[in-house]
């Protein structure tokens, strides 16, 4: 795999992270299901997962950039596993609505596990790490730049959304209202 192809794959992975963050927003806004603290932590890990690909797009692929994503994916998998175990007893309806039979935290575990496998697979391709023959690295294209901007905007929107949900105090374990909007009314 060439450096250019690796950068394209990294841009695609950023679109995948953007899709996850957008889907979480869609569930929050359309189904009026506010994310719990563990759900927010999993979103944060998905956002952290994007930093490796952003660095790969900007500075070129390096193993250390993939390592950042691996760390975030392992932590995210641990967080989602804990939430699955919290609701594992028979009769426990789980937290939130199930999507295609799985709750969001189960989908999160599947997503983090898939990320770990994909990161391991792309790390097998050594050619992407060979020095570029061009004297200067080409600037990222529109496809990659859009992916980076999309992820950054979605993460920034989470800042606003979480501030509205939690206010300036600790987040509720089972949030049902936006604390900051409640105080305003």
């Amino acid at each position, binding site marked *: 795999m060439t450096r250019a192809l690796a950068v394209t794959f990294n841009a695609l992975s950023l679109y995948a992270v953007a899709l996850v963050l957008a889907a979480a927003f869609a569930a929050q806004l359309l189904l009026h299901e506010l994310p719990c*603290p*563990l759900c*927010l*932590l999993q*979103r*944060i*890990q998905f*956002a*952290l997962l*994007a*930093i490796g690909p*952003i*660095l790969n797009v*900007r*500075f070129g692929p390096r193993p*250390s950039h993939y390592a*950042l994503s691996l*760390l*975030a994916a392992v*932590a995210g998998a*641990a*967080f989602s596993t*804990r939430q699955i*175990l*919290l609701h*594992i*007893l028979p009769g426990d309806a789980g937290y939130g609505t199930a999507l295609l039979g799985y709750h969001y935290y189960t989908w999160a575990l599947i997503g983090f596990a898939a990320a770990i496998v994909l990161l391991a697979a792309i790390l097998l391709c050594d050619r992407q790490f060979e020095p570029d023959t061009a004297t200067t690295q080409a600037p990222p294209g529109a496809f990659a730049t859009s992916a*980076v901007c999309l*992820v*950054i905007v979605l*993460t*920034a929107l*989470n*800042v606003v959304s*979480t*501030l509205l949900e*939690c*206010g*300036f*105090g*600790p*987040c509720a374990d089972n949030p049902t209202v936006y604390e900051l909007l409640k105080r305003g009314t």
Partner: protein
Amino acid sequence: MEFTALFLAVTIVMLVAWLGRRSLALALFAVVFLASIATYLHHATDTLKLSF
């Protein structure tokens, strides 16, 4: 509030990774990653209802 701060911190790391120095982005990532683990450990107080 801590989650808002974490999302804000991640946004800043992303901006540094895209616009700033690589070494600073790596250092900031480490700080935010450790902060997210610490937040998890702070909140993971519910006992898992498991028995073997």
